[in-house]
C-alpha cells in the first residue's frame, strides 16, 4: 500500500468514527443544538407532509438529519423493493414503507449498528416492515439487481469514494430501477484543510 493510500485509509477510519459520533449525538440528544437543522423543523423546512410527521414515530422524526426531501421524486409503488442508503433512525424508510405496502420491502443501510436497532424499534412502533443492515455504502451488502428504488438523504457526500458508491448503486438496482436522493454538492473544490478535517467532512 502506498503512503497516500494508507493515509486515505486512516482518514476514512477516523471519518467513519466521526460520522457515527455526530449522527448518534443527534439521535441521543434531539433537543441539542447542531449547525444543521434537524428533527421536525428540518423535515417541515424541506416540505415533508405534516401528516407523515404526525403519523411517524416521534423517535424517527426527532432524529431526522436530512438535507431535502427524496420522496418528492421517488414515486415508490406497492410491491417495490426500496433501499434507504444511510437510513439513520428510519424516517425516510418508514415513509417509503407506506408506499411500498405489505408486499414491498424496505431495507435500510447504516454504518452504525445502534441506528439499525432504532430503525427496527421505530418500524415496529409504526407497524411497517423495514429491515436494516449495518454496512458501508461503498460495499452495499445486497445482491446485484435486487432493488427497484434507492432513496438517500444527505449521505453520499460523506464518502471519500463517491464513484465507488455510485457504482454500487448501479450494481444493486434492477434494470429500469431508479434513484431519488438529496445531497450536498459544492461548486468549488474544498480546501485540503476541510478534506483533512473529519469533523467538517462529517457535517
Amino acid at each position: 500500500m502506498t503512503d497516500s493510500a494508507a493515509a486515505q485509509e486512516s482518514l476514512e477510519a477516523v471519518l467513519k468514527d466521526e460520522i457515527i459520533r455526530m449522527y448518534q449525538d443527534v439521535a441521543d440528544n434531539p433537543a441539542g443544538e447542531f449547525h444543521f437543522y434537524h428533527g421536525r423543523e428540518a423535515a417541515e423546512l424541506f416540505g415533508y407532509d405534516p401528516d407523515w410527521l404526525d403519523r411517524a414515530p416521534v423517535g424517527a422524526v426527532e432524529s431526522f438529519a436530512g438535507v431535502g426531501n427524496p420522496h418528492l421524486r421517488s414515486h415508490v409503488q406497492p410491491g417495490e423493493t426500496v433501499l434507504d442508503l444511510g437510513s439513520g433512525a428510519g424516517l425516510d424508510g418508514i415513509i417509503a414503507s407506506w408506499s411500498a405496502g405489505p408486499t414491498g420491502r424496505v431495507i435500510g443501510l447504516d454504518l452504525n449498528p445502534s441506528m439499525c436497532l432504532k430503525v427496527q424499534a421505530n418500524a415496529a412502533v409504526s407497524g411497517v416492515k423495514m429491515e436494516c443492515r449495518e454496512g458501508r455504502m461503498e460495499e452495499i451488502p445486497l445482491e446485484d439487481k435486487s432493488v427497484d428504488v434507492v432513496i438517500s438523504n444527505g449521505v453520499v457526500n460523506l464518502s471519500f469514494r463517491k464513484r465507488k458508491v455510485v457504482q454500487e448503486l448501479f450494481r444493486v438496482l434492477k434494470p429500469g430501477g431508479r434513484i431519488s436522493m438529496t445531497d450536498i454538492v459544492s461548486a468549488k473544490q474544498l480546501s485540503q484543510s476541510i478534506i483533512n478535517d473529519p469533523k467538517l467532512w462529517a457535517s
Partner: protein
Amino acid sequence: MFRLLEESGFTKVKSVVVPNFRFKKAATQNAAEAYGVKAVLLTASRPAA
C-alpha cells in the same frame, strides 16, 4: 455527482436545487456560501436493458 452518475451508466440524470436548504449556524452558512455549497435532489435511472 451528476457527472459520476452519468459516467457510471445512469440515464435520465436530473438535479434540482433544494430551495430551503441552509445551515442553522451563520458561520457555517457563510462558509458554505463561499464554497458554493447547496443541497440538490438528484434522480437517475439504470437503463432497462
